[in-house]
C-alpha cells in the first residue's frame, strides 16, 4: 500500500456536482456546485479543477470513490460511468458508496438513514454498529414516519463527496487484497415499464 493514498471522490446523484480529494485522512481539495442539470458537462472539468488545486495529476490517484445513489437515475449513471472509465484508464479501483451510508458517516449507529425518493416516498436503510446493514428499501412517507429509533436524513446530505472519499478509503484498507467490485448504481426503485396492453391474438393451426 502507498504511504499516503490519494482518493478522488465525486457524486452527481442529486441536484449538484460534488468532488473531494482525500490524501491519507485529510481532505485536501473540494468542489461543490448546486445544479439541477448539466452535470454531465460540468463533472470532468470540476474534477480537473480539484486536482489542479491540489497540484496533482490523474496518474497520481490511487483510487476513485463514487456516489452510487439512491437518487436521480441519470445523475447516478453520470458519475458511475465516468468512474468506470477512469478506473479502466488509470488502472486503479473505483469504489461505489451509497448516499445512505455517506450521509450517516458521523451518525451514531444503529440509525435509520433516509433520503427523499419523491412521489411521497423515501429510500431507507437501517445501519447497524457492526456494519451488518439491512438492504436499502423504498418506503412510503407513512411507513417511514412509523420507523423506530434514531434517524439521519432525509435532508442532511449537503456535500456528500468528502464522506464518500473517507468511506472509499476505509473500504480499500478493509478489502486488502480481495478484489473490489465495479461500482454499480443503487436504484432501489425498478424501471418504469409495463408489459404491452394489447395481448397477442390466439394463433390457430
Amino acid at each position: 500500500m502507498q504511504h499516503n493514498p490519494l482518493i478522488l471522490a465525486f457524486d452527481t446523484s442529486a441536484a449538484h456536482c460534488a468532488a473531494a480529494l482525500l490524501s491519507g485522512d485529510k481532505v485536501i481539495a473540494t468542489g461543490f456546485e448546486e445544479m439541477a442539470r448539466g452535470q454531465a458537462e460540468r463533472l470532468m472539468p470540476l474534477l480537473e479543477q480539484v486536482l489542479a488545486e491540489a497540484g496533482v495529476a490523474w496518474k497520481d490517484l490511487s483510487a476513485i470513490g463514487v456516489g452510487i445513489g439512491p437518487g436521480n437515475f441519470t445523475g447516478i449513471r453520470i458519475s458511475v460511468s465516468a468512474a468506470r472509465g477512469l478506473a479502466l484508464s488509470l488502472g486503479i479501483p473505483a469504489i461505489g458508496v451509497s448516499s445512505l451510508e455517506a450521509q450517516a458517516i458521523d451518525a451514531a449507529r444503529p440509525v435509520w438513514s433516509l433520503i427523499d425518493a419523491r412521489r411521497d416516498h423515501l429510500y431507507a436503510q437501517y445501519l447497524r454498529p457492526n456494519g451488518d446493514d439491512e438492504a436499502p428499501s423504498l418506503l412510503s412517507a407513512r411507513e417511514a414516519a412509523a420507523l423506530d429509533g434514531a434517524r439521519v436524513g432525509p435532508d442532511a446530505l449537503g456535500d456528500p463527496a468528502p464522506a464518500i472519499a473517507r468511506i472509499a478509503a476505509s473500504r480499500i484498507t478493509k478489502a486488502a487484497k480481495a478484489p473490489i467490485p465495479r461500482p454499480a448504481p443503487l436504484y432501489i426503485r425498478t424501471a418504469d415499464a409495463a408489459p404491452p396492453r394489447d395481448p397477442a391474438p390466439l394463433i390457430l393451426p
Partner: protein
Amino acid sequence: MTKTVTLLGLESSCDDTAAAVVRHTPGALPEILSSVIAGQTDLHADFGGIVPEIAARAHAEKLDICVEEALIQANLHLSDLDGIAVTAGPGLIGGVVAGVMCAKGLAAGSGLPLIGVNHLAGHALTPRLTDQAPFPYLILLVSGGHCQFLIAKGPDDFTRLGGTIDDAPGEAFDKTAKLLGLPQPGGPSVEGEAKTGDPNRFKFPRPLLDRPGCDMSFSGLKTALLRERDRLVAEHGGLRHADRADLCAGFQAAVADVLAEKSRRALAKYLQLSPGTPALSVAGGVAANMTIRGALESVCDDAGTTFLAPPLALCTDNAAMIAWAGIERFRAGERDDMTLQARPRWPLDQQAPAMLGSGKKGAKA
C-alpha cells in the same frame, strides 16, 4: 496526413452496448481490430419494445466491460491508441449519457483526445469503412429508429433528400410482430413468416407513393394490418397460421415497394450530381431483410448504379462504425473537450427543415 490512426469507438444509443477498435493507414484498407457487441433483446422481451430506462441501466454496467474486451481482442492497450470516439447522439439519452461519460473517463485517465460522433454519421460513413466508397454516394438509412435518404458529400457534409414523417420501418416490423404474436425483434420473425405467405392476398397501402419527393410514411400501414388482423380474428375466433403468413408477406411487400420507389426517386436526384462512380448503400438493421435488399438491388441495376450492402454486423448498431466516423473527424483535426454534450436529437443535415419532433428539443432527424 499519412499517419496511421487507431481509435476506440463506443456505442450505446439504443439497445446495443458496443466497443470496437479500428485502425487506418492512408492508402491501405481500414482494419477492424475488434468489434464487441452486447445486446439487450432479452431485457426488453417482456415489454414489446425497448424501455429507455432499462436500456440505460444495462449500458452503464456493460460499457467498460465491452471496452476491456475490445482492447483484449485487438491485443492493444489504451496507450497504443490515438483517441476515443463515442456516440454523442442522437438516441435514447440515458444510454448516450452513459457512453459519453465512460468515454470522458477513459480519455481523462489516458490523456487521449475525445471525439464525439453522430450515430447517424456512423451509419452513413460505413460504406467508406467497408467499400472505400468515394464521395458523393447515396445512402438509405433504414432501421428501428430512422429512415432517411442522404447524399454523403463529405465526412461532415450530408444532404437529406427525404425520410419518414412518422414511424421507421424497423419499428413497423416490430409492431407487426407484436400484433401477430411473433417474437421480437420483429424484422427476422416477420421475414421468416412471410416466406410461406402470399404477398398479393392483402392489398396494403403504399403511403405517399402518389406524392412527389422522397418522404415516406409507415404508420398507416400498421393500422391497415391491425384492421385486417381484427377482421380475421373476428371471423375465425383467432388468427390462423396461413393468414398470419399472408399478412406478413403483404406487409413486407408494401414496405419493400415504398422503399424501392422512393429509392428510385432519390437515385434520380443524386445522379443529377453526376457522381464519378455512382453508388447507393444501405445501412441499418432493416437492410438485413432479403426481400427489401432484392428490391433495392433491382432499382440500382435499372439505374446503372452500384448497390452496396455492408455485412449485416456493420449495418446494425455497432461501435466499429463509430470508431471509423471518429477517424474521419480525427483526420479533419476535430476534437472535443470534457464538456462534450450528449444530444438526444442531432440531425445529420442541419440545413434541411425538421421532419420529426420539431418541438423544443429540436429536430430528431
